[in-house]
């Protein structure tokens, strides 16, 4: 007789399928690199520049997310659906709200810690990303634990970099005397975002290459 664990595993299979082609990871990687780029633009341009307006950040972030979402869908339509099948995920409000609320709470907690806690952004980002990635991705694909290890060790190493070195990366950062973000915090965040984006992006790229090599669209009809 089927066990509840088996049924639960079947129910989770469609979620895992989203990253069967590595596009889930590539999307996250591109998003992190995009955030690093926006942060770098904010840090390296004068405080009065367009990039340092809060509205510019939200517009850029929204545009980036739309491009990533549409790009991933277009690739899936051309590559994934003809090879291993089409899935339309559930659109009910509850299913959509949960990750959005979780993401917003995490971002708010991260922002709060950065602003008032004076903690190392690389350490905090690492503590959020590593367990999330381990639970969401590595749990289902064994070799992804290597990515988890790289993320953990890399985040730890970035967090331990000397303050002077981190500050030198964002020396001209807008962190003025009234700002709560010191140049070393900005530098730490920039390197961490680049590192996380590149690592997860490369991991997704490897998955995509393997997927392309191992799968083929069935001849004739998709049935």
């Amino acid at each position, binding site marked *: 007789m089927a066990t509840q664990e088996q049924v639960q595993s079947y129910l989770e*299979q*469609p979620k895992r399928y989203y990253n069967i082609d590595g596009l889930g990871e590539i999307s996250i990687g591109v998003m992190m690199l995009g955030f690093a780029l926006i942060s770098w633009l904010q840090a390296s341009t004068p405080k009065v520049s367009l990039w340092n307006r809060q509205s510019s950040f939200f517009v850029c972030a929204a545009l980036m997310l739309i491009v990533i979402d549409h790009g991933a869908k277009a690739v899936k339509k051309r590559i994934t*659906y003809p090879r291993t*099948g089409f899935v339309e*995920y*559930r659109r009910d409000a509850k299913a959509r709200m949960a990750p959005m609320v979780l993401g917003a709470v995490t971002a708010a907690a991260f922002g709060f810690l950065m602003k008032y806690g004076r903690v190392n952004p690389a350490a905090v980002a690492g503590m959020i990303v590593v367990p999330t990635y381990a639970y969401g991705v590595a749990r289902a694909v064994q070799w992804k634990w290597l990515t988890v290890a790289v993320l953990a060790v890399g985040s730890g190493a970035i967090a331990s970099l000397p303050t002077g070195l981190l500050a030198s990366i964002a020396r001209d950062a807008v962190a003025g005397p009234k700002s709560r973000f010191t140049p070393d915090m900005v530098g730490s965040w920039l390197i961490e975002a680049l590192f996380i984006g590149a690592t997860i992006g490369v991991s997704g790229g490897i998955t995509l290459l393997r997927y392309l090599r191992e799968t083929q669209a069935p001849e004739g009809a998709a049935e």
Partner: protein
Amino acid sequence: MNESIRNISELDRVIHEPGRLMIAALLFAVEQADFLYLQHETDMNKGTLSSHLSRLEEAGYVEITKTFRAKIPQTLLRLTPAGRQAFEGYRRNLKAAL
């Protein structure tokens, strides 16, 4: 009668078959999916999968729509409200039985 045994006897026979249980669970978690996806995820051959889907369709649990995607025939499958209800009931009974 022992409650646990009664719960087992109340399990929906259509869904209880391992192949169909897998199909029902996969479809329960999504809005809809195509035949190719189910074939890939269940590792069943076309004949076996078709036969299970026919049984689920007969029971009114699955809705099958034949369509085209870029001139290629595509079979879309989704659980009907009755299918969702039956699957939820099956899970409840399974939990109570074990």
